[in-house]
């Protein structure tokens, strides 16, 4: 049982970091629906780097670096070229999905390295995740930088007129976001489940996206949601803990996805919708063109 909760928390760590990274991007007004793609890049290239060099550090650094690079790419398409951000995000997803399938194929199989030591039975990244939540909350609500990021996401023309460089702020946000997504992916492939397989991320990137909407862009609610989902996922993998032998294991695998749809449905009720509408960064997904 303890093992179950430990694994749940480990899973939720990845949801936390992935969703948090998208939250940062979205607060600055940039929508990236291709979270899955960035995570795949981080997971695959991090895996390859770690296995090739024998160093976990290399793996995580490469994962973050590639994530930042992809974030930059998304930023370039969305900020400088001013393209449709949903199209761009879809592109990132399909690029990630297609390329990592090919690049990772020769590395299919276990990582083959000694597991990262746990702290109090939990992955050390759990604490990293908590720390990131706290830092993000602090920066966004209490610092000048945070105010700038939020303003750029609400009303970029106002920010521009107030002397803020909208493009630069958004780039900063989207590169950081990418790096964290890459990190989340690397954690998945190096710590949580160190086996490479074709399409192994199983839609976690999209669940993270749903989590951001669900959290109403509040880092604390996001953490709660991530914890819930991590637990749900573990449950789906181990249904025998709750309802032994009731349904085939495949049906159980659908549970987290069904719940996600259910959550989205919940979010459309009036109570939710007014709060959600108020919390949404007004300029989210809209390209900003300087006069």
């Amino acid at each position, binding site marked *: 049982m303890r093992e179950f909760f430990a694994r749940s928390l480990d899973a939720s760590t990845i949801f936390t970091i992935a969703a948090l990274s998208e939250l940062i991007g979205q607060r600055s007004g940039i929508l990236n629906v291709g979270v899955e793609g960035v995570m795949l890049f981080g997971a695959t290239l991090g895996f390859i780097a770690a296995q090739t060099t024998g160093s976990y550090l290399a793996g995580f650094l490469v994962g973050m670096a590639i994530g930042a690079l992809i974030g930059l790419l998304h930023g370039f398409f969305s900020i400088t070229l001013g393209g449709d951000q949903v199209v761009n995000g879809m592109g990132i997803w399909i690029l990630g999905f297609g390329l990592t399938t090919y690049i990772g194929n020769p590395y299919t199989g276990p990582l083959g390295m000694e597991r990262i030591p746990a702290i109090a039975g939990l992955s050390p990244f759990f604490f990293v995740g908590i720390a990131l939540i706290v830092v993000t909350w602090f920066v966004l609500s209490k610092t000048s930088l945070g105010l700038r990021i939020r303003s750029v996401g609400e009303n970029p023309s106002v920010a521009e007129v107030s002397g*803020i460089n909208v493009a630069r702020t958004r780039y900063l946000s989207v590169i950081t976001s990418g790096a964290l997504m890459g990190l989340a992916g690397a954690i998945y492939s190096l710590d949580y489940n160190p086996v490479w397989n074709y399409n192994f991320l199983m839609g976690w990137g999209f669940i993270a996206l749903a989590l951001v909407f669900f959290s109403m862009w509040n880092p604390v609610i996001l953490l709660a949601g991530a914890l819930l989902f991590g637990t749900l996922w573990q449950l789906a993998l181990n249904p025998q803990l709750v309802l032994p032998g009731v349904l085939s294991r495949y049906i159980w695998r659908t549970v987290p996805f069904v719940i996600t749809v259910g959550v989205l449905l919940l979010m459309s009720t009036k109570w939710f919708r007014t709060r959600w509408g108020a919390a949404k960064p007004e300029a989210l997904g809209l390209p900003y063109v300087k006069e």
Partner: protein
Amino acid sequence: MRLQSIKHGDPALAVRGITKRFPGVVANDQIDFEIRAGEIHAILGENGAGKTTLMNILFGLYQPDEGEIYIGGEKVNFRSPLDAINLGIGMVHQNRKLVPAHTVIENIILGHPRAGKILNLKRTEEEIREVSDKYGFRIDLRAKVWQLSEGEKQAVEILKALYRGAEVLILDEPTSALAPPETERLLASIEAMARDELAIVPFITHKLPLVLAISDRVTVLRHGKVTARLETESATEASLAQNMVGREVIFRMERTRVEKGEPVLQVENLSALGEKGYQVLKGISFAVCEGEIFGIAGVSGNGQQELAEVLAGLRKAEAGNVTLDGQDITYHSSLERWQMGIGYIPSERNDVGSIGELSLVENVTMNYHFDGDFSRRGIVDYRRIRRLTEELIAEYGVATPGPDIPAKSLSGGNLQRLILARVISRKPRLVIANLPTQGLDVGAIEFVRNKLLEAKKEKAAILLISGDIDEALSLSDWVAPIYEGEFMDIIPGEAAKREDVGAMMAGLKLKAGQQ
């Protein structure tokens, strides 16, 4: 770099020979202009006269093709609004440049160099309050901006400019969204600021009485050139108008008398909620008959937009009912209403009234795709609609190379002509015209008004929603000033007095007129 300390009367800001060209037009043509510290200097001109361009140049958004700008006697060069701000120019925009979701304080310190890495909201609040009190602004600094009234939002913008150290304040259409009492307060604050050696430049379009009331000097623009520089003392409404437009402007339209017919629209106790869940319509009742123009006059944001939407079937009514030709249509969809004979001219011609990427023919289809003559058994008869479009283009004077160009390439005036054409050509029983002349040039405005009068002669019932009190008074058979979701009164057009209607638009309850 800051403005040196300037004595009263010294030039704070001057421009010489400012010229700016855009493809096909010279927006500013050798403009000379100068404002002194402690002066209120109005810039007057119609839409298209070049005011916006000049304003944007002064504020650093555009670079002039020719000419120089001087601040405090020294030549300066703005490469961006940031340069202008740092040199002491503050701008208060017409469409508020504020972040509604953030608090007043957050909006004011946004981008301020003194904000520091970690925000010290308390100290900032005290500093802002000091400035706010000095000039008579009364705002809750901790409130979120979306909760404030228009006048308060404008005050926030002014405070923001002042907090940033502005010594020249440019105001873009400062009173267009204000109710008369708020305008009074603003004028008082402006005078207080002028006494404090600030230079204030309001840019104004049609509010001639305002110009006379507030400014020390006036510069009039027309077609990009300065056509007059007057001391306000020696100017009159008529002389200003003449310089602005270049011909005798008739202020009052001939009101046509038409035989009154049966009631077409009857509204009883109508209530509705707005975007944020507050009640924006509070039990409105009225009727419009055939051949009548019923004018609702109000400052934007008092519920008239929502009233139009409810009547058009685009917003749900919370209570009350709406009857068309005797039939209850309270729960009818907009499609059903169009089919029953309501024609709606929306206030947002670009976002709602038209689809920019579609051709003119396809835009006309917006009102015809459900019409049995033009769309049979699921197939749209585009050829027929095209012919109709060509006829409408000719009849309504839409300036366009053809019916196949995308609607977004039409100018505002021409787009409005097309929208009017497509709505009125269906000979609706009830025309709801929501701010039909907003943002149009004088020629288009006259055209729209004449078309409404024509429809009136054709026995249509017309509901006119206007923010322009003179327009409402000159066109309507009945005038209903609206304030915070209620009709303050319903007055017959001839009997309506401008001061009374203006006061009611601002919320003053006067003696009940004839119903």
